[in-house]
């Protein structure tokens, strides 16, 4: 593959590129789902091709093709240079890249069982059994399950001399039960909603998640929600489960720290950020208990943002984002790091596939667990009055990432340290920094899970990316609850 890459690099240089990098990618994706005891979908997708990124006349160009013949690869590289020269017609300064030492490396996701060695019969048997368990609960009107496996192999080569071969495996699984009656549809999901739990692991993920053991409870909760009381509106102490806190981190920390947004490069679609450059190391983002890192390294865990090198050849790093509540870091690339006079990229440039231009994406943006032992049940026991909210149902945040509103599938009232009545249709809302400054407890390591969000959209054309978020249940004081239904009763 490096020979093919060299054809593109040579043409790039001949046509006048001052920098070029090449990614040759081969992806395979298996997707299975069931619905009410029948097959929902069964697909196997493979895709292979080359993407060439160049700087010529001080501006960027990118071209991609599925054709790996020599003629097509050279034409693709030439097209990238032509595009870069067109870009240069509307520029103010030449693109500069923060320096990076060339690397030569091989890396593969650590895993126990290659998911593609497990038979489809076995995959479907797992899903059909769960589906049956969900529908055995009287009142469940729809049961859905899904299982996904992906293998992404990539060869990266640059005009600076890097040669990096990485193979990443991803597994994902989840299910949901719906109950429809009267004028209401309620839903419960496991391990979390919108596709379940995803990690960079092999088939062992499917075996670890206690899928069967939780199915009946999930079905029963979906039905019970129909008769539960509406979540009241007001100001409450709120405890979020780890999966909801993971999405809270994603939306109200992960996106605003993307340096391309901060610098206006995403203003037309994804938006900008309230985290202007003057706020670095001066903004009190959260309470003293809030410590958040962006960590792509293998030692952080098998998150969807774990790799050895990003897609411009920068090694995986851990960047402190919020340190004891203080805002301390952005997600950056070689170009954006140079724009703010940083010595080195944070290594977060990622692409959906070989045919997409890499852009700044979250890696694993995780909150660190509390240092004192604290389980979820102890956290609830230590709360006099409030609500405990679990599993995301809806999410929305403004284009600078200040005002958010989340809904969850289920909630429980907390009275004098005990979970009491079940609450349906819970929601909470707030302003990002006020919310994080209200965090006054977080559970310890044994409750911490590295959650995967597989469908984060960003960029034009839009790219879908998986991101990781380690989180443990945490408590927030004085949060606005229930306003999603205000005026709609």
């Amino acid at each position, binding site marked *: 593959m490096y020979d093919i890459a060299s054809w593109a690099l040579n043409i790039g240089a001949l046509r006048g590129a001052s920098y070029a990098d090449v990614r040759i990618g081969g992806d395979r994706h298996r997707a299975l789902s069931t*619905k*009410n005891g029948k*097959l*929902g979908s*069964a*697909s*196997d*997708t*493979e*895709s292979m*091709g080359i993407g060439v990124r160049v700087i010529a006349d001080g*501006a*960027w*160009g*990118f*071209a*991609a*093709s*599925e054709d790996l013949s020599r003629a097509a690869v050279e034409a693709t590289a030439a*097209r990238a240079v032509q*595009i870069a020269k*067109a*870009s240069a*017609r*509307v520029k*103010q300064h030449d693109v500069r890249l923060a320096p990076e030492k060339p690397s030569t490396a091989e890396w593969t996701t650590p895993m126990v069982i290659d998911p593609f060695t497990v*038979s*489809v*019969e076995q995959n*479907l048997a797992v899903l059909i059994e769960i589906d049956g368990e969900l529908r055995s609960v009287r009142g469940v*009107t729809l049961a859905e399950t899904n299982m996904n496996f992906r293998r992404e192999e990539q060869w990266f080569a640059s005009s600076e001399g890097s040669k990096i071969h990485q193979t990443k495996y991803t597994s994902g699984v989840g299910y949901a039960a719906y109950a*429809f009656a009267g*004028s209401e*549809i309620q*839903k419960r999901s496991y391990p979390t909603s919108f596709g379940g739990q995803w990690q960079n692991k092999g088939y062992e993920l499917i075996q670890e998640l206690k899928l069967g053991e939780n199915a009946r409870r999930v079905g029963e909760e979906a039905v019970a929600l129909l008769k539960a009381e509406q979540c009241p509106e007001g100001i409450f102490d709120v405890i979020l489960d780890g999966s909801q806190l993971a999405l809270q981190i994603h939306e109200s920390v992960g996106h605003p720290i993307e340096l391309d947004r901060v610098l*206006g*490069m*995403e*203003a*037309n679609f994804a*938006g*900008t950020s309230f985290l202007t450059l003057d706020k670095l190391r001066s903004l009190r983002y959260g309470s003293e208990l809030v410590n958040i890192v962006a960590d792509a390294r293998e030692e952080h865990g098998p998150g969807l943002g774990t790799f050895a090198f990003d897609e411009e050849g920068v090694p995986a790093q851990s960047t402190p984002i919020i340190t004891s509540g203080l805002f301390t870091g952005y997600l950056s690339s070689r170009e954006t790091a140079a724009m703010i006079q940083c010595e080195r990229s944070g290594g977060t440039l990622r692409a959906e596939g070989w*045919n997409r*231009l890499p*852009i700044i994406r979250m890696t694993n943006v995780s909150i660190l667990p509390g240092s004192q032992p604290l389980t979820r049940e102890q956290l609830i026991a230590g709360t006099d009055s409030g609500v405990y909210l679990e599993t995301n149902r*809806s*999410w*929305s945040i*403004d284009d*600078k990432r*200040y*005002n958010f*509103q989340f809904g969850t599938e289920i909630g429980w009232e907390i009275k004098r340290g005990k979970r009491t009545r079940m609450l349906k249709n819970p929601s909470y*809302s707030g*302003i990002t920094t006020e919310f994080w400054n209200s965090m006054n407890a977080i559970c310890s390591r044994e409750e911490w899970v590295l959650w995967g969000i597989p469908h984060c959209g960003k960029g*034009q054309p839009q790219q879908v990316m998986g991101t990781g978020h380690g989180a443990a249940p945490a408590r927030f004081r004085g949060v606005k609850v229930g*306003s*999603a*239904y205000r005026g*709609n009763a």
Partner: protein
Amino acid sequence: MPSRDQAAELVQRIRKYSVADEVEVIIYHTRNALTRFANNVIHQNLAEENVAVSVRTAFAGRTARATTNKIDDEGLQRVVEASERLAKVQHADPDLLPMPDAREGSRSVRTIPSRHFERTAALTPELRAEMVRSIVAVAEKHRLTAAGIVSNSETAEGIFNCRGLSTWHTQTAAEISITMLGADSSGWQKAGSPDVDTLDAGALAVTAARKAVEAARPREIPPGKYTVILEPAAVLDLVGFMFYDFGGLAILDRRSFLNDRVGTQLFGKNINIWDDVAHPLQSGSPFDGEGIGRQKVHLVENGVVRRLVFARGTAARMLRSEVKDKVGPIEPTGHGFPLPNEVGEAPMNIVFGVTDKPKTVDEMVASTERGILVTRLWYIREVDPYEKIVTGMTRDGTFYVEGGTIRHGLRNFRFNESLIHMLANVEAMGIPVRASGEESFDMVVPAMQVSDFNFTEVTKF
């Protein structure tokens, strides 16, 4: 781009490798290019060429799909084997229909206007750069910063199956999206069309710039229920959240807000909605994911949901269901997605009806005593699936209207609004136009003046 004959030849090569009872092949070839600008410079600029060959095989009630972009003999053999391997291991589904034959596929295929324009396909990076330069010139004239895209694409797609069904469609698409940023305000415009010559980058830039200038120094007013004037892009992004519920399978799954509501007066009597692939402002292919021709369907008639759309298999199931008398006419309408899938079908060529007395946005403003003009909405998500409450934010041009005139820009609001309530409270509408947003596919929708729109919070800008 491959021709229909070349695609058919590829299908013959694929069929040689299959031992399945039935074989269907979808071929999709695309060339995309997109020039992206921000801070008044081009910062990303790309082109892509790709092909997808997707093979569905079926063995006595069992079916699966495999897709590749490798069209050499080895790649084609591998994709057929992958599809067959997936299909063979399943339990038979008695509801799986045989693949449609040529007669069934072509029965309702409608003639559509040509949607392939050479000048769109031939747009070069240099021409896109010139369009960006003209947009940036408008920004600089108003001391603003421009961000956005200029893109073009060319696609060919066809569906072929072993029972003689054969379809083919080629299309181009162009899109311009512009955000103009001031110190404390912004404005936005977006347009898309198969024909780039119908898009006016300069005019879009001028409108976006005017909005950014007029929205400067935004003021905060309390949330609450207001009369709103929603520009077409805002209408599009809201109503896009309800059309997946117009599929028959959503009713059978009991996940649709239309369960037990088809035939009732759900919206105002001034609301009429069709799905019409042949409408001159629409785009897309005239056949669905199985190759069945897309019918024109009058979904909402004077505020009453009269019809749903059906894939072949869903229609057959619905005819046997206990709700068959409560869902309007049941027949395959040509709106199914490629099989196998969980969603079933959806109308994808939405066209709103013209009201008796259409009003321009300016006329709606002039008739509003106290209200809010909304350019665009953002990050819309469903809060309640049956009452169809959605939440989201205003963005890039939100204005306070009082005494029939625009007074000043506003800090952006969060809304939590039921789409059922919204479409029951439309006081005036404009002439439907082809609109582009970010949350939904392009539609032909009007601007709307809506009473009692529910804003629940204000953000900080």
